[in-house]
């Protein structure tokens, strides 16, 4: 469905010092530097896949997404989405994709979302029957029936996001580009959005590309992740595998019936947290079995769980490695 080969995207940025003298000098000589937003990325995504792009700010995630949707031209490399070259922005291509950007909206502000629906219907040339069916389905899936008649400005952020999603999917696109869709939403709304995207993907077989800061988005939605840092693709695979590679350690979380000495905990591994009633110890994969056995026999436990380290820490490690490399 999506094929990217050796994609590069550079920006030429002119440097300018502040001040009057520098301003005049810049008329004659403008030093510039090339910012490599995307530096030699290649990947392929099949139809119906859900893929997450992870990476720190400025890594190139949004840039890649915009190149795939045709909003930006690649400096070098080949891009193909649904058999089209996005850059050409052919109508056939645009009919099949959709873009949702968190915190930015295409809904008309002073009018009810239903008005934007009608407008998009005309733009995407959706036949009447299909339009009515789609609206009915989306209204049910997202619980929009109370919202569609109210002016957009009167809706809360979460309600607006649901309507944004509906508008974006009105024309039943085959490829969904989601750029930070859950940013700023409360926890329950984030879950709703994730659930909906997953349901849509399973029902219609649409391909989903998601960029996000929130690990839960990616963990819940995307069996496959691509990690981008400084314009380069540093990982492409499943999320559990990523965790295993970067931070193979596990976390043993114990709840205690009475306080224990720190030394007893250190015998198991690196102590992350130590309070009277509970503690967290980091243990390498190999030593895990031994550590658990020891904890069960030596410590006054009421509960013991084994977890992966939080994704945030994994990512932080990953990018730190990238910077060291």
């Amino acid at each position, binding site marked *: 469905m999506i094929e990217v080969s050796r994609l590069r995207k550079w920006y030429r940025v002119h440097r300018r010092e502040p001040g009057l003298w520098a301003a005049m000098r810049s008329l004659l000589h403008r030093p510039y530097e090339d910012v490599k937003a995307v530096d030699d990325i290649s990947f392929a995504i099949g139809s119906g896949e859900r893929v997450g792009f992870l990476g720190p700010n400025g890594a190139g995630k949004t840039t890649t997404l915009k190149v795939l*949707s045709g909003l930006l031209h690649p400096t070098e490399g080949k891009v193909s989405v649904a058999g089209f070259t996005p850059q050409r922005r052919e109508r056939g291509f*645009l009919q099949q994709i959709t*873009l949702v950007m968190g915190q*930015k909206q295409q809904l008309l502000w002073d*009018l009810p979302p239903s*008005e934007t629906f009608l407008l998009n219907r*005309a733009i*995407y040339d959706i036949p009447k029957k299909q339009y009515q069916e789609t609206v009915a389905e989306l209204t049910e899936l997202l619980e929009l029936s109370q919202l569609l008649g109210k002016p957009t400005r009167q809706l809360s952020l979460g309600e607006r996001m649901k309507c944004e999603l509906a508008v974006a999917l009105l024309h039943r696109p085959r490829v969904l580009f989601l750029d930070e869709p859950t940013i700023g939403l409360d926890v329950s709304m984030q879950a709703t959005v994730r659930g909906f995207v997953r349901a849509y993907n399973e029902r219609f077989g649409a391909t989903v590309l998601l960029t996000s800061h929130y690990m839960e988005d990616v963990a819940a939605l995307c069996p496959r992740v691509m990690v981008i840092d400084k314009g380069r693709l540093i990982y492409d695979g499943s999320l559990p595998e990523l965790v295993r590679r970067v931070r193979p350690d596990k976390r043993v979380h114990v709840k205690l019936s009475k306080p224990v000495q720190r030394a007893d905990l250190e015998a198991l591994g690196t102590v992350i947290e130590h309070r009277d009633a509970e503690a967290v110890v980091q243990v390498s994969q190999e030593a895990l079995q031994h550590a658990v056995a020891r904890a069960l026999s030596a410590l006054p436990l009421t509960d013991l769980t084994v977890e992966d380290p939080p994704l945030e820490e994994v990512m932080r490690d990953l990018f730190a490695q990238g910077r060291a490399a």
Partner: protein
Amino acid sequence: MRRVFNVLRALLHASVALALQYRIEFVVEGALALLWLAVTLVPLLVVFGNRGAVAGWTFPEMLVVLGWFVALKGVLEGTLSPSLLQVVDHVRKGTLDFVLIKPADAQLLVSFANVEPSRVVDLLGAGGIFVYAFHQIGHPPSPAQIALAAILLCTAILVLYSIAILVVSIAFIAVRVDNLLYLFQSVFDVARWPSTVFRGVLSALFTFVLPLALMTTYPALALLGKLTLQTLFAAVGGSLAFAAIARLIWIASIRRYTSASS
């Protein structure tokens, strides 16, 4: 083509829905448009209070020019300006991407995004002015003259539209440019007088560089039966060329926006 028509109709529908939402404002805007019409007429009434003809034009003839001015101003301030100003807003807020990702021509989508229906008062006012003027002249214009005037009205709107597109294309390079559109709107006031009012440098400026005087003078000449065939062809040809240039510059600006922005 049917699709273009549908999109236009949907855009207009959205604008009217918005206007009807604020019903009181709609009426108030309409009343203000009437007030402004009166204000526009006052100088002309005073000028011709004790003069028969100015720069070769009689009072009713000048009224015809003023009528076209009112109509074109209504089009400019009622739809061209508000719509194209939204483009500047889009660029500022980063929502132009939503426009570019739609399978419809971006220029079409932005041009009629925002129509202010209360400005229809201007068109009605222009009609009223024409009726009065020709009543003074004594005989109505012939159908041929009306047809000719309609053609020239279209060329005038085309030129106006092209200038607005050019101004807005600059927004892609320097965002704080909605001022320029206001500047153009105020310079457009020059078009309320026929071109012979201006002499020398100004005359050349407003005929060739910024064909403002012609936008209202030519349709007036047509309605009054004073238009030469030569002028007709020059006007139509010129406006089509101008529109083509504006379109090319718009496409280049969009291309530049998509290749250069982040």
